[in-house]
């Protein structure tokens, strides 16, 4: 197992080098003068000169690249050109928000997607199956921001059941410590605020979780259907095992494999989806931040966010591979 992990880690190195070259090139292939693009309307020649020096734009390319690598490896991920706030500190204050939302969305997607997939698989071709398959097709097709605004309109504005923006009631003026509000409110003994945080989490989690839910439901359905027809399942049944035991021990255990892969990939995809969801729900996370940065042409922030997102994607994929290997011993020895 250890060797397997090391092998996977080594395989990540070329990806990282490729990524660093792409990101390095990114700011240098901006249309037009980077000074105009970055500083905008009120730029002065002095500020342009300072920016060039700061980015090292006057140095030879290879030297610029080495500089970029050294800075990045030493943890200097730059600062906003709009408000001068350092990337890393700002990222860390927002990341908990995105994590909470991603977990909320995953809980929703798994909690609803797997049972729906299993139900559909059991009634293949039936009306229930048709309904679930249809709804999941709808879930994959509808853009996150459209669904988000529709949820806001129905459950927030018309029915007035749930809050529509932010992570917590702004009027509560609650001071977070870890940034994970579900935990912070509990530790502060504020059960009322914990409930408020959960209520704030519901609509964005549904919006963000809709696509993974649909995919998970479909994959679960397909993979259960495949496994149900295997010989060993028939054998288990003919042994006279209870249907529940057959389902849990023989069907699902094997059906999990493709589902795990998809869940892992979706966890990465959720980060991308969070960009839209957070903007719609005025959610203070990394996604809304990067949208603002893109709109403000805040290139250092955009650049470093891509880097960190890519790293997260790599790590999640690695974890999925490891999880896969744990579930399926055959993989480890290949």
């Amino acid at each position, binding site marked *: 197992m250890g060797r397997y992990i090391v092998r996977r880690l080594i395989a990540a190195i070329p990806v990282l080098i490729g990524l660093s070259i792409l990101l390095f090139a990114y700011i240098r292939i901006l*249309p*037009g003068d980077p000074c*105009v*693009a970055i*500083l*905008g*309307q*009120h*730029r*002065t020649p*002095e*500020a342009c000169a*300072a920016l060039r020096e700061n980015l090292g734009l006057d140095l030879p390319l290879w030297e610029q690249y080495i500089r970029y690598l050294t800075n990045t490896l030493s943890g200097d991920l730059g*600062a906003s050109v*709009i*408000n*001068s*706030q*350092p990337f890393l500190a*700002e990222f860390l*204050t*927002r990341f908990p928000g995105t994590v909470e939302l991603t977990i909320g969305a995953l809980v929703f997607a798994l909690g609803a997607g797997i049972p729906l997939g299993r139900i559909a698989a059991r009634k293949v071709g039936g009306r229930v199956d048709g309904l679930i398959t249809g709804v999941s097709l709808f879930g994959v097709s509808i853009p996150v921001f459209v669904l988000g*605004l529709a949820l*806001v*309109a129905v459950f*927030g*504005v018309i029915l*007035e059941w749930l*809050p*529509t*923006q*932010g992570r917590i009631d*702004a*009027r509560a*003026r609650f001071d977070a410590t870890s940034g994970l509000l579900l935990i912070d409110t509990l530790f502060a003994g504020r059960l009322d605020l914990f409930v408020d945080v959960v209520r704030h989490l519901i609509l964005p989690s549904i919006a963000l979780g809709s696509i993974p839910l649909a995919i998970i439901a479909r994959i679960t359905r397909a993979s259960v259907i495949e496994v149900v027809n295997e010989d060993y399942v028939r054998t288990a049944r003919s042994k006279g095992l209870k249907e529940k035991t057959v389902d849990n021990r023989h069907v699902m255990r094997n059906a999990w494999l493709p589902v795990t892969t998809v869940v892992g990939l979706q966890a990465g995809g959720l980060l991308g989806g969070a960009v839209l969801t957070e*903007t*719609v*729900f*005025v959610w*203070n996370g990394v996604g*809304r*931040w990067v*949208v*603002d940065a893109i*709109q403000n*042409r805040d290139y250092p922030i955009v650049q470093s966010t891509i880097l960190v997102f890519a790293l997260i994607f790599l790590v999640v994929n690695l974890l999925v591979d490891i999880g896969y290997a744990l579930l399926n011993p055959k993989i480890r020895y290949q």
Partner: protein
Amino acid sequence: MKNLRIGAILGALLMVAAACSSTPVGKAGGTLIVALPGDIVRTDAALMDDSNTSYVIQQVVETLVGLEPGSTSKVIPVLAESYVMSADGLTYTFKLRSGIKFHDGTEFNADAVVFNYERFIGLPTELRDYAFYIGDIFGGYGSESNLESATKIDDLTVAIKLRKASSNFLLTQTLQVFAIQSPTALVLGKADNTETDVAKITAATGGAGAMVGTGPFKFVKWTVGDSVEVEKNAEYWDKAKVAYVDAIIFKAVAEEAQRVNGLATGEIDLAQTIAPATIAAIAANPDLQLIDRGSSFNTFQISMNHTYAPISNPKIREAIAYAIDYDFLIETFYAGAAVRATNWMPAGVAYAKDLNLPGYDVEKAKQLIEESGETDLTIDFWYPNDVSRPYMPDPKGLFEAITANLEAVGFTINPNSDGWREGYLDDENQGKYEMWLLGWTGDWAGPDNFLKTAFFGYKNGAPSKEFAYKNDALDKAMNDALAAGTEAEAKTLWETAQDLIRADMPTVPVANSKPQAAATIDLKGFIGSAALNEPLNLVWLDRP
């Protein structure tokens, strides 16, 4: 008889007292949630040039002189009790109010004013880009600044000396960039001209020493990218204007739909700006109120560069002015929240007069084209394709409608567009466009800010590349007006300048838009201002 007279005086005094106390009394308490279209940028009044920051900061810091609530141009004393200008117009002596303390408990006095003004003059080169207006208004820094010195006369008197007389001085000093902040806090926050790296100036980045002023609210915290929190200053010096609400949270809500939804659900009390497209939805909701700010503070125009033919022909420019269906544009693209421009500056600006600009008259336009003698009526026309501005809510729509108007009278339009920052601003500024859409939102309500700064002032002694509009008499009139010693003289000169512009029709002003605000129905006491000088200490929430 004597008693009767005393009685009458006493009675009169009582009536005055009663009148004073009968001003509407609001309900105290509650937290006000204000949605801004974006986040603030810095927490140092001097180092800012954007409207979100200035909207928040004006609740916390104060200037020597300010604008009367609701007005864009009436100057009133704030931290100064009174002021006098010397006969030569070079020295302004400010008598300061006594007994005012900064939020950090230190004294507001002449030393504090001198400290702040010396900071403005000597701002390090590296920081000047962040303090756009200080350099812009005074023409530079150090020995280049028109601000020569600030001197303490006594504890409560300060003399500010200019290098040359400037009739816009008082009006420009109402801008929040000239707020007086606690010197102790500025030193603590490294905002005392010793630090040149803005990232290390904690006063500007929300850390130690940030936003320590004398205003009705105190800065609490800035959650970058999300919100700013300020709380009521119970010790505010103007006892009649101590804030009603306990705190204000300014939330950055970029999505227009979510500003309206937040109002509907009560998660937002006040949306500082809403787009024309949502006006109808707000008006239809009985729980919400639409806030019209009364006047406009911007001009939207069809900009023109006089190096190109046929634009160089004044008859052609006049013809274009007659070809535009202004009422249609205002109804369609501004939902009525705009007025037809009658000048190159909005009506609320000092000395602005109705210049009798051409109205929509197709026949007249055709006749002028005929008289112009121009045969090639092809014009390159540009619009920005990735922004909307308060004065130009839908650039593409406006462009198409204007193009249709122009083609109807015989022009051939070459349509072009570019990204706002990717080329549009730069190219129009460099004189690469023949005709394009652009406007200006005022910084201060002086005619100089519109006619000279934004539009037709010469750059380095020559017509700007942007408009290539040569009119030496106009440039002289505007410079003389700025240096005028008396109000009457300034008025005459500015009126001359307006007449000179009208005679040439260098561009075609279209509309002055009135960006609206919206609030929940129980928000009271709000006084809107087109210049966005909106003191929220006067606002209260009428709810249980």
